[in-house]
């Protein structure tokens, strides 16, 4: 089981993947909160404290994952972020790291990569 009990906030607009990730993280012992969009997360951030880790899809419809991170950073919220994307290219990758992230995952990814990234998060 996980060594950390920090809550993982998953924001993903693909319901199937969102549920799959939720199941996976839960199976690993993480508390999980899921949102279908950045907008939904911004509306209801209750329960998302400083120990949370954000697992963010970059290409969210509406506010993108990178934009959300920028907003959170600019508003003083400094949460560890793991970006995930189905569209991997150099530009996206650069933007992701520029916005600030502890890991960048290319979908589909093995759970080990995700769990390792979570466990290595500050």
């Amino acid at each position, binding site marked *: 089981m996980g060594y950390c009990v920090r809550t993982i906030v998953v924001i993903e607009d693909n319901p*199937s*993947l969102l549920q799959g*990730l939720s199941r*996976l993280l839960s199976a690993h012992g993480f508390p999980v909160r899921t949102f279908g969009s950045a907008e939904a997360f911004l509306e209801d951030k209750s329960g998302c404290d400083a120990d949370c880790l954000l697992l963010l899809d970059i290409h969210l419809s509406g506010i993108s994952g990178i934009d959300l991170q920028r907003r959170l950073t600019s508003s003083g919220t400094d949460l560890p972020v793991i970006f995930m994307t189905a*569209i991997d290219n150099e530009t996206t990758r650069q933007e992701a790291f520029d916005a600030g992230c502890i890991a960048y995952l290319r979908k*589909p990814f093995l*759970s080990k990569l995700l769990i390792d990234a979570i466990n290595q998060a500050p």
Partner: protein
Amino acid sequence: MITRLVFGFTVLLLTMANEAMSEPRRVLFLHSYGRELGPWNDVARSVHDELIRQYPGPIDFFESSLATARDPDSDSVPFVEYLSTLFTNRKLDLVITNGAPAADFIRKYRQQLFPEIPALFTGLQHRRAPPDRPSASYAVVAFNNDFPLILEQMLRVLPETDRVVFILGSSPLERYWVDQLRTELKPFQERVTFEWLNDLSFEEMLKRCSALPARSAILFGLMSVDAAGVGHEERKAFDRLHAVANAPIFSYVDAYFGAGLVGGPLTQVNEIGRQAAGVAVRIFNGETPGEINSPPIEPAAPRYDWRELQRWKISERALPEGSEVYFRIPGMWEQYRSQLTAGIAALVLQAGIISLLLIERRRRQFAQTDASDRRREVVRLNRVTTANVLSTSLAHELNQPLGAILSNTEAAQMLLKANPPDLAQVDAILSDIVRDEQRVSEIILGLRNLLNNRTEGDLRPRDLNDTVRDVVKIVTPEITRRAMVLRTVLADEVLPVRCDPIHLQQVILNLVMNGIDAMEGAQPPHNLTIRTQRLGDTDVEVRITDTGKGISAGKLTSIFDAFVTTKPQGTGLGLPIAKTILESYGGDITAENRMRGAVFTFRLPLSGIGPTSELM
């Protein structure tokens, strides 16, 4: 006064001359064997016709035949008395004899019958002419027969001849000629055998001539009276002989040239007539007959009947130099030269045109195949380009369910390791995996369709609506990625079209991608609508409407031209390719602006109506 006298005398002389001219010349034509017996009948006819032609005044002809010529023992006295009686009160201007017996008769009885009347002897051999010229008061127009020359040339054209059969009758004249020929032709007896038929009746002659041995030839001399005492009209006799003879026939005179004679150096009957008439006219004009010197007429240059040459297989190369060939039956070429030339020219022209057309057709086929190959390649590249454009959204679309499948699988693995495992949860996960897997399959299928590189055409009729649905599946990720809305309003009936679904899909894809690009950067909302409907009994129509920037007025007419594009990264080939594909199936496409955005409308024939595409 003297002038008047001279004038009056001149008029008197002219009047007398005119009266002399208007007074007919009386001519007695005395035949040897009868007026119808050949070849003298031809000579008589020729002299008669020539005399009328050459003498300007009227001529009164009297004709009589020497009955005694056939029978040497007959008495001439009654015939002399007959003539004497006949011309007692008729003044004759000229007596013309035809043949040697008549000439001999006049010489013998001239003093008794026509002592003052000039005479002209013709139709006879020079050797048979009276020897007592020029003191005599008669003129002679004779001819020379060169029998050795005739035989020589006969053996030249038919060198294998070893037998010559002579056709001559039994009258005194004919017997005379038998003797003459036997003497003259003696030198040839070493080369050929002579067969004299003058002791046979003509019927027997015909029988003999119909069964002659090979390498025989016939020399037709005279046929007036045969050994049976029967007189024969020679022309008819010749025709009968020609009809039955199994050997080529030669002669000395051209009377039967054209009727079956092979030919040779022949005496010309018409030349005898022409010269005899000329001498007669001179006598009419006052010349003394005995002083008119007319050299004997020699045989003309050898003449041959082409038909007989063919019949007896005589080569024209074997003919004596200077020979002329008559009665040549023109071959197909000679007979229809102009028609054949025109026909051949037409054929050559036609063949030329056909060849050119075939070459042109071949060239066109090559060009069409080449053009078709190029178009097919362009369409394929167009699809690859579209696939490239869609690759980002397709990758996104594919990776999402794959990610879900992977996450769910690993979650399930962990759940199964728990004790007790949460099987209900695992079951729910497996259901989700199946659903996502189906989604992935759909996307891969769409991708495979998009990148299909097959070359053979698929012309089974398909529902146009299905093709639209396929396109929607392909472009939905892109639409979603760009936060646009794609709406379809499909006819609620099957719209069968007979065209390769890949081609049709490409047309719709191009138009949809065009619409998406046109809406990119434009004011929202970004709505793309695809409508299908049936147009009567013949066509289907697809309208693709966007809410983009529209087509600039300057490009509205050229939007389907190659390399015309409104997009910065556009190739300008999407719409021309769409148009080319549609036209190849008998369809067409138009573009127009709306209040906002543009609408592309294309039409295709319903299944079974349109032509087969050349893109196949």
